[in-house]
């Protein structure tokens, strides 16, 4: 799968400031079509309305966490192939293992920098 800067990206986080930070970093990387959602439920609704090329999601949100969103996306035939990067403060080994088992494409631990985000996005699309 090739990296296409025109593809729509969905940023999921319950913290508006973090959405703003990731949105600005993505713009700096050249992405133009960036949408956002405040939790997994809203993200899933949006994903059913529109085909996103990449989902960047936080883990800890209510009512639906990023982990639950990931599992639901992977279980949905029409969404299951969507690249999914977890960006979270959850840095315990069991979190990373659970995310990997659930089918996450990459995992970024907060706080992170622009270079890390860029590297992980590129890694997802070079696989």
């Amino acid at each position, binding site marked *: 799968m090739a990296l296409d800067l025109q593809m729509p990206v969905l940023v999921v986080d319950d913290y508006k400031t973090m959405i703003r930070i990731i949105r600005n970093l993505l713009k700096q990387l050249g992405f133009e079509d960036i949408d956002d959602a405040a939790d997994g439920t809203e993200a899933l609704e949006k994903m059913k309305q529109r085909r996103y090329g990449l989902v960047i999601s936080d883990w800890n949100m209510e009512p639906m966490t990023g*982990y639950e969103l990931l599992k639901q996306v992977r279980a949905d035939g029409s969404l299951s192939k969507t690249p999914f990067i977890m960006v979270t403060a959850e840095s315990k080994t069991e979190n990373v293992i659970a995310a990997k088992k659930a089918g996450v494409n990459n995992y970024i631990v907060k706080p992170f920098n622009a270079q890390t985000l860029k590297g992980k996005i590129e890694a997802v699309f070079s696989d």
Partner: protein
Amino acid sequence: MKRRDLMANMRRENVARVIDFLEENKNREGEVSLTDVMHLAEVMSGSMFDFLSTVQPAVTEELTAISREIGRMKDEISQLRANDMTGNKIPDAGRELDAIVEATENATNTIMEAAEDIMGADTSDPAVYQELVSNKMITIFEACTFQDITGQRISKVVETLRYIDERVTSFIERLRIPEDLDAAISETDEDRRKRELILHGPQMTGEGVSQDDIDAMMGGGQADIDKLFD
């Protein structure tokens, strides 16, 4: 000694105190506080004192010791200043934390707005652009002054936590409460959600796995994950 003689040794006013206490509290539908229980114990032990002193001096000594212990407990509870904690200290600490969240959010928004203005600025006129950047930099420096205020607020919260810690620790030590007396912690719905959805929150420095470890886990297979447990 006959039973009637023994009962005669219970002073009438002591019996009346027990009856008064029970009368006063009979309509409270189970809403009895620790203070009430201790008060009843005091009244009961006082009432029984005269009665039992004629029967068994050892029992009298026991009751005296119990009475003394109840008095000491009352003193310890008053030293705990629990009402001050729940009425003032803890709500004040909560307000300080709310103010910290608000201040950091405001500062972050101000800084991000300034950065976004610089990112989106027209660079065709270097002089105008330079002036805009200078002004926005001053705005960023000003916004960073939040750190001084939040630092002071955090100190107040830490002071409150220390205040609570000192009093609770002292209370536990003085009452000689053994660790195994702690009631078992039952899992709340929130606890269950956190366990099932693996919600730990941010880890302290040195805890959790680093981005490099995560990269190794994401790039490798089970063997790389196993290495983390070696």
